[in-house]
Every structure is written in C-alpha cells, then in structure tokens.
C-alpha cells in the first residue's frame, strides 16, 4: 500500500523493534541481546530511538531498561480518568522524593529530614507501588535497613536515571542533599515526652 521510497530497514533493527513491542516488561540491552542470540543491539536501539523521534510512540531508556511508550504531548488524548483516583498522600510523595534524592537512606534519615515520624504504612505504600525497595543495611550500630528507588520508579516518572531528577544539580550544589549527619538523626529520634492524648479515654466513672 505504501508507495514512498524508504531505505531497507536492517534485520537486527526490525528484530529489536519487534522484541520491544512484544515485551511485557521493559528490557535491558543485555536481555534483548540474549533474546536475539547475543547480537550487539546498541546501535540498533539508537537507530530505533531516532526513528521514533517525533512520532506518536517513542523509544525510551529508563534505568538501563528500554521500552516504547506514547509521546507525552498526547497525554490529553490518552489520559485515563481512573488512574487519577489513586493519588499519593503528601507524606508519601515527600518520602518518595527524599528516597530518590538521597538514596540509599534509612528510615531514621528520612525522619530527620521531615522532622516527623514516618508512619509504617507510608514506606509500604511506596514499596507496594514498586517504586522503592530495601537495598541492604547501613553498617552502623543497629544496622538499619536502607531504601532506594527502583527502575519502575524511573520508568513511571520518565527518568533515564536519577541524574535527571528535577533540580538535582542545584540542590546538590546548595548542599541540601548532603548526607544526613548523626546529630540530625539524634535530634529527630530523641525520645518523646509522654503524651496524655495517647492514653485510652477513661470509660469508668462514678456518678
């Protein structure tokens, strides 16, 4: 049906295109290569990325994984209302930002920055969304668990790597991403004064 003259497309490029189109998950270059019998797919990926530039679909790399996605400027045509329903709380978005900009971080470090205790569920929500995971323990007394973001986080927010986080360079230059020091953690975790409001209401009383 097509009548225009097109350069014959390389078989490897076609294979990479088909593989990524068919894949249910973003794939690393190594996974694609393995799938295609160990071929070197770097050049093919770049050619494809160039080919799709400006089209309704584009090829992107997110945390070393490649996938096709719709062009962001078409969002208004494609947006699905139901996806909007699930919004993160302010606490959860803040914790997510802190993990992304400071990773890996412990819970105590997150709390030191926020100045409040982080409810148990907040990190769970982020882990359930697949954006945050436990990446080990900090080798300090108590060996606290430390958290970092995942490649799904990068994919979801359209970042190739953490270097693309909004304003990350300026924040680092201003010293606002410096590691949280012990003093700060100490302040945040100082034992709390007993709060009377935490006690169960007194239900027994005489007339």
């Amino acid at each position, binding site marked *: 049906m097509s009548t225009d003259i097109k350069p014959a497309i390389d078989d490897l490029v076609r294979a990479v295109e088909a593989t990524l189109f068919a894949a249910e998950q973003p794939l690393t270059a190594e996974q694609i290569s393995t799938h295609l019998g160990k071929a070197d797919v770097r050049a093919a990926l770049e050619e494809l990325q160039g080919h799709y530039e400006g089209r309704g679909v584009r090829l992107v790399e997110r945390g070393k994984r490649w996938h096709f996605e719709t062009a962001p400027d078409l969002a208004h045509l494609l947006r699905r209302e139901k996806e909007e329903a699930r919004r993160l709380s302010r606490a959860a978005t803040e914790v997510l930002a802190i993990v992304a900009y400071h990773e890996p971080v412990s819970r105590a470090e997150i709390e030191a920055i*926020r*100045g409040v205790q982080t409810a148990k569920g907040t990190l769970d929500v982020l882990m359930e969304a697949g954006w945050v995971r436990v990446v080990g323990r900090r080798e300090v007394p108590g060996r606290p668990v430390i958290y970092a973001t995942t490649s799904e986080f990068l994919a979801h927010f359209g970042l190739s790597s953490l270097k693309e986080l909004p304003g990350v360079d300026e924040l680092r230059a201003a010293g606002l991403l410096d590691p949280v020091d012990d003093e700060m953690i100490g302040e945040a975790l100082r034992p*709390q004064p007993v709060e009377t409001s935490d006690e169960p209401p007194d239900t027994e009383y005489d007339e």
Partner: protein
Amino acid sequence: MELPPDLPASPGGDDSWDGEERAEARKETLHLEIDGWEGPLDLLLDLARRQKVDLRRISILELVDAYLTYVEEAEALRLELAADYLVMAAWLAYLKSALLLPKEEQPDPSPEELAMRLQLRLQRLGAMREAAARLMARDRLGRDVFLRGAPEGLRVERKARWQCSWYDLVRSYGDVKVRSQPVVHMVRERMVMTLDSAIARVSSMLGITLEWMELRDFLPPAHDAWTNEQLRRSALASSFVAALELARTGKVELVQEYTFGPLRLKALRS
C-alpha cells in the same frame, strides 16, 4: 544551658493515599487547626514561607515570633497542643533570648549557629517538598504516557536435548535381561537343633544333677556332625530358648551375674 533544636517526631503525622484535600482545607483554618501540621518543623516551614523571601534569607527572629504567637493563640483557644510543639516553642524561646544577648554573653554553641542549623533544616525540607511536587507533575507512566496496551509477550520455551551414553544403553539392556530371567529360589537344608529336641535335652540333663550348670554345658560334645559350627550355634540358640521356656514354666532357675556373663541354670524341685 544546653537546649538543642529538639524536633521530636510526632506520631501519626502520616496518612497514605489521600492527603491533598486536607492540605487545602488547612490553609483556610490556619489559626484553628493545629493538628493538620506534620509536626513543628512543618509548621515552621509554612510560617517561614509566609515571610515571602528565599528560605536562605528568612529572619529567624521573625519566624520565632510567629511560631510563639501561633502557639499562644492555640493555647488561648484551649486547643490541645502535642507535646513536641511545646518543646519546640520552649527551644525557640530560648533561641530568641540567646540571639538577643550581647555577643560576648552568648552561650556555646552560638545562637547564630543554632539558627543556621534550623534554617538549613527548613531549606532541606522545603527542597524535598518542592522536589516531590515537581516529581508528581512529571509525565507519568499510566497517567500521561502509556505502554503498549496488549503486548504479545516474549516466551522462552525450554527444549530438552536428551543425553544417553552407549554404556548406559548397553548396561540397561543387561539389567532388563537379568531381571527377566526366570528366577528359581533354592532353599538349602540346614542342620539345626529344633526347639523341641533342645527342651527335651535340657530337661533330661537337669534331671541328673542338682548343681548349677552353665548353658554351654548342655551342648552336645563336639564330634561327628556336632563339629559343624552352624549346627553348634543353632544348638546354643535352641538351648537358650529352651532354658527360657523351662524357667517360664517354673522348672528351672536361671542366673546371669552380669551382662553377657555365663548363663547358669539349676533344676527347681517342687
């Protein structure tokens, strides 16, 4: 007096997937709803923002005043303040008085340094709050951009490459042949002393003597067929069972002084 910028964490300041509307509501009822803040640092940050200057240039004294006013108002309205707000208020009051002292009378660490640290903490929190907002406003997968709706999927099917050696093949045939050969079971006749003959022999010998006799003494003398070791073992075993049987029926007394020691018997006269 040492009072560090104590920012105790307030519990329950979090909720999971909803908070947006609440933040809106809070702005309108600022002076009434103290519970809406996620701890004193959150309140301080908001008050700092009201100065409408860069967080790096806020006036700490002004900020302290605003916070203290706020706490006083809340108390006047008899709102119950969480303890950490009061701790922060006390510390800020201390910081204010220290800042107002002449330089030479200021305590260590210097109030300027404490103020700077507080300012840095507000900046850090402010930066993260803005970063979170910018992150959330990005083109997000599943909301603004979409993956392929119906991917065919990639599947790797594992196929076996079967291995078998010549030896295994031939050995297996040997096994089959051996297994399928007709099997003939031959039961060899053995020379044994039966229990009946042992009982007869032991009781008749006990009838002769009243003395203790060792079990081995009941065995036939080793000549002719009785030199056969298997037969002797059989005779010993049968004689032992015979001795037990006779003891059970009250015809003999049985003694063994120690484990594996000689077993001796004597007839019981009734």
